[in-house]
């Protein structure tokens, strides 16, 4: 079947009234939760996952696409009006966005973020439509060793490129790998790291880890600093619309942001932080009004927000075609697939084309719906920001407990989540990035499985990973990603000098 025919079929499904309703519900809920301070897209998706549990898969995934986009959009509102990014991909937005809000152009900043997200999301969805089937076909030639190498690459890029310290990133990653190993070994039935607790035999759900790290960790952190932190909400003065000048200054950054965000997001190394930083740097270089930067230049919101959205859409390519999530949000999406016994990967396009194309079609619909719903509702979303912090974080704890409890009605799950929340609290205090841990939990078991299959196929010969060209190239990319942050230092060393800064992309506080 050709791509356009499949896509039309997908629209045929997704445009049915009941599914449109699910998409609208998803977008609204996603924005509503995403707009809450301290809640990023990953937590939004994790908290709302239980709601979709009892729906049929197509409805659930259409709603999910809406939640995904809504959560992302909601995050930019807090960045601009509160100066508190919900996730690391929004950090850049705060730089110019918050200044715009202070100058009384908060409405325009929100508008350029919304329209930019729409433009980037739509273009990226077109790109997914054509790229994903190609990658899926290509991925059929991949063998166990290649998948193992891909996961190594995903680990290395998330750990090495994001965050202030490689060491702390690695500790976070291996902590996640440890949690991922808890439970019965699928191949041999041996219990591992269960410490005699029967409820741990099924392993620790990644939702439990994500909600614990993000929601409980954040709530405890806020509680610890309560007596010191004061937040200011900048009231949105003036119009909510962009003026002619702001439109003309925004559209090029939107397109450039998309062009940067989508390709990087769709790499199995991925992530959305790097494109936002690149976009910000490029827009600043290209700008003819350098004096406005740092005081609220609209390009600094338009570009990164488009890049952010495009990268998040790009992340769906490795997720759907290879089954490899490259962000915390994508890791939770993978769980959603697994709940319905669907394994994302090359076979998903073969075995469940209806579902995949309905999902892709609903990405288009979600984007349009987001724009239609959000521009008029901006004032309502701003109201949500004024919920008192004490009540807000209490409610977050209630919803976090609810989300985890409703997965399996298990007290142990909830207690494990609280313990992980305490870990998350200390990770926040001492600046450990959280995303590597989430990826470790979800990718660790997959990686072990591929490693063992590759070893079984090669009769225990470890050279399989370097003798297969695909796997060798991917592993070399991983090595490059590991060395890249140290490039300036290495160059200086080669010249016989010392010192040099480490390149850092983003703060690694994705939630």
């Amino acid at each position, binding site marked *: 079947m050709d791509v356009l025919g499949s896509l039309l079929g997908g629209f045929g499904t997704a445009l049915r009234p009941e599914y449109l309703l699910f998409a609208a519900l998803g977008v609204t809920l996603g924005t509503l939760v995403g707009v809450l301070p301290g809640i990023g897209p990953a937590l939004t998706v994790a908290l709302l996952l239980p709601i979709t549990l009892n729906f049929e898969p197509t409805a659930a995934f259409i709603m999910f696409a809406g939640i995904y986009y809504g959560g992302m959009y909601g995050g930019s509102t807090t960045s601009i009006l509160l100066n508190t990014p919900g996730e690391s991909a929004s950090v850049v937005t705060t730089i110019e966005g918050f200044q715009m809000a202070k100058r009384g152009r908060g409405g325009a900043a929100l508008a350029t973020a919304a329209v930019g997200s729409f433009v980037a999301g739509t273009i990226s969805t077109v790109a997914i439509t054509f790229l994903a089937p190609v990658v899926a076909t290509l991925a059929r030639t991949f063998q166990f060793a290649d998948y193992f190498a891909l996961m190594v690459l995903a680990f290395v890029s998330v750990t090495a490129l994001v965050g202030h310290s490689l060491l702390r990133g690695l500790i976070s990653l291996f902590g996640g790998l440890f949690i991922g190993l808890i439970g019965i070994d699928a191949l041999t039935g041996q219990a591992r790291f269960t410490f005699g607790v029967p409820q741990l035999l099924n392993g620790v759900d990644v939702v439990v880890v994500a909600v614990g790290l993000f929601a409980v960790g954040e709530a405890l952190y806020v509680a610890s600093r309560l007596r010191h*932190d004061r937040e200011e909400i900048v009231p949105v003065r003036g119009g909510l619309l962009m003026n002619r000048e702001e439109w003309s200054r925004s559209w090029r950054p939107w397109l450039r942001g998309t062009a940067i965000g989508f390709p990087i997001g769709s790499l199995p190394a991925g992530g959305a932080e790097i494109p936002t930083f690149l976009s910000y740097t490029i827009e600043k270089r290209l700008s003819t009004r350098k004096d406005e930067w740092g005081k609220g230049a609209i390009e600094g919101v338009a570009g990164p927000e488009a890049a952010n959205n495009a990268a998040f859409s790009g992340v769906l390519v490795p997720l759907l075609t290879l089954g490899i999530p490259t962000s915390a949000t994508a890791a939770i999406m993978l769980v959603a697939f697994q709940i319905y016994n669907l394994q994302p990967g090359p076979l998903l396009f073969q075995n469940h084309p209806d579902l995949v194309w309905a999902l892709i079609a609903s990405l288009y619909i979600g984007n349009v719906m987001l724009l239609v719903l959000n521009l008029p509702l901006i004032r309502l979303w701003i109201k949500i920001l004024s919920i008192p912090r004490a009540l807000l974080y209490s409610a977050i704890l209630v919803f976090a407990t609810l989300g985890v409890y409703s997965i399996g009605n298990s007290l142990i799950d909830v207690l494990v989540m609280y313990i992980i929340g305490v870990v998350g609290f200390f990770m926040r205090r001492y600046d450990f990035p959280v995303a590597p841990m989430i990826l470790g939990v979800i990718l660790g078991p997959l990686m072990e499985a591929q490693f063992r299959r590759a070893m079984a196929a090669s009769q225990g010969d470890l050279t399989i990973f370097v003798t297969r060209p695909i796997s060798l190239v991917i592993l070399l990319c991983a090595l490059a990603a590991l060395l890249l942050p140290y490039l300036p230092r290495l160059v200086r060393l080669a010249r016989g000098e010392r010192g040099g800064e480490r390149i850092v992309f983003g703060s690694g506080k994705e939630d």
Partner: protein
Amino acid sequence: MAGAEAGAGGDRRAAPSFVGPRIIAALLIAGGAFLIYHSLQIGATHGYSVVGPSIAPIAVSICLLLLGVIFAVRTTVLPDEDLAEASGAEEAMTHWPTVLLLAVLLVGYAVALAPLGYIVATALLLPISSRILGSTHPLRDAVIAVGLALVIYFGFTAFLGIRLPQGILAPIL
């Protein structure tokens, strides 16, 4: 992240501290060693398998131990000054009683969910946790708590088909 820079305490310069990081390093080393011991207990497989079930646990445990050692080095012999400053600032701002109270309350909530039931436990949790988090409007919080608990309970059980514990309200629900 809630206003890392916005705090009033950011003006004061706190003394650098390695107390927290050193405890973490010690926990990593101890935990890594314990997990290595634990991994070695994982039974061998019956039948043929090239990579047994204990290989990955052993590898992960050893890495955790090694990372703990490196982290310990970074807090003692080769100190990471940025980390010391950040952790010193955190320690100066932390109000431990709030964190501990909240943690104890949460565990109590989890344990009380089944016997008390979702509605009662949630209606109790929300005002208390809001109080711990600095709210000064107990009546408002209580009203909101009861409303939220009822909406969630009936929303989830009636519309989403997800069961939540009835607890002591079982006779009237």
